[in-house]
């Protein structure tokens, strides 16, 4: 059952954090993900506005190197995943179609020791932030259930990255909300003249600053009781 999957993953993330006595961060999501899918895990962020200081996290040197290679070459499974809608799954990195698709990346990746790579988009609707990049030194597909586990981890990374950008604590999970949140983000993006991803961050920051729930803030925006103005620094005005 999927509910059990999400609880299991979050419990694992929290455990990784408490092992270090630190608040939950992207690092812990990657560690938990690595345990769940038996692969190296790295985060590839394509949206520079949301980097919040830390460039990339990787659970192992291979993962880190692959992200660097893809960033430099401007191509690779993570680059495609970050730009597209779907995961890019490459159980055998060295085969012809893979070499043909990413000629500026695959030879270097194989030389570095990578045999399989699976990249999952980090996105909320049309807001694309990057990809969660899984890699292995052995070829073969992901185990059953591993992809779904990795997707839950991708959502967790998204929630943490957005929350950090909002200066908030990482408690609010963007994926537990319904349509209103996304409609509100669209509206606020026009009000502020910013991309939708940033609008989501501003909504979250407003909720956090006012001690309100994100869902309530979204509802107020959609009902036109709360409006964000480009002149304000971070907060919306209630009517």
């Amino acid at each position, binding site marked *: 059952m999927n*509910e059990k999957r999400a609880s299991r993953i979050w419990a694992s993330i929290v455990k990784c954090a408490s092992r270090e006595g630190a608040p939950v961060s992207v690092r812990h999501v990657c560690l938990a993900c690595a345990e769940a899918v038996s692969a190296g895990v790295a985060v590839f962020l394509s949206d520079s506005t949301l980097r919040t200081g830390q460039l990339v996290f990787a659970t192992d040197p291979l993962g880190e190197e692959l992200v660097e290679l893809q960033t430099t070459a401007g191509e690779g499974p993570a680059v495609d995943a970050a730009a597209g809608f779907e995961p890019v799954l490459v159980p055998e990195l060295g085969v012809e179609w893979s070499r043909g698709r990413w000629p500026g990346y695959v030879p270097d990746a194989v030389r570095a020791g990578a045999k399989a790579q699976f990249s999952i988009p980090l996105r909320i*609707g049309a*807001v694309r932030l990057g990809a969660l990049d899984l890699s292995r030194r052995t070829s073969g*597909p992901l185990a059953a259930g591993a*992809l779904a586990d990795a997707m839950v981890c991708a959502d967790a990374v998204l929630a943490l990255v957005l929350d950090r950008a909002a200066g908030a604590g990482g408690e609010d999970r963007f994926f537990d909300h319904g349509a209103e949140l996304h409609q509100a983000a669209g509206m606020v993006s026009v009000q502020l003249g910013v991309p939708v991803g940033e609008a989501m961050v501003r909504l979250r920051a407003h909720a956090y600053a006012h001690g309100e729930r994100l869902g309530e803030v979204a509802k107020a925006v*959609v009902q036109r009781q709360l409006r964000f103005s480009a002149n304000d620094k971070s907060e919306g005005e209630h009517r």
Partner: protein
Amino acid sequence: MSVPDARVTRTFVELADTLVADFDLIEFLHLLTVRCVELLAVEAAGLLLANSHGVLNVVAASGEEVRLLELLQLQNEEGAAIDCYREGRAIECPDVTRAAQWPVFARAAQEAGFAAVVAVPMRLRNEVVGAVNLFAATTGELGPDRLSVGQALADIATIGILHERTLRRHEVLVEQLQTALTSRITIEQAKGVLAERLGIGVDEAFASLRLFARSHRRRLAEVATSVVERQPEGEAVAEAYRRTR
């Protein structure tokens, strides 16, 4: 009450016809919910899919009224859809005033004007991926005929989502579900952008998106992406709306 055979056949042919190369999943699912309402003589229909967290999300509904969407969405706490999803079987409630097991859902359903509710599972082999909700304005059972047509429509919806030649890997199911859910989120974002730009409500914004997609033979999710990313096509949608006023 039985369902007229010819209309059922026509509907299935119509839906099967849409399962071609350039097929638009969200539009297909929307059409399916509308056909549910027509064929089964119910008031409203909604289609929910579970994401990888097991949270049911509305992916299509026969109408965009807030009341209906909220009613569908709140079922993550209690209601016919969540029971149907968990148990993998049809759940019927011919009279919501008797639904003591769903106090919040029953009240919301009544406030929305519904007296009876049914949920049929969307399943592929052993996996339940979501549910189709049917709402009637009067009490009473759906009856075996309508229930089996409803299940067949839900099965078509599942096939539409798993629109691949063969389902070789479990990953394809997960990917396709994620694509459907991501598409829906993009559409919600686009509704917000358009609503704000044009000074209209989100349901009117959705209608303008659909109209544009259909008349330009583009997928809803693609047009929505253009709107959200402020690409020229997105501008064209706003322009097209303004011209109709």
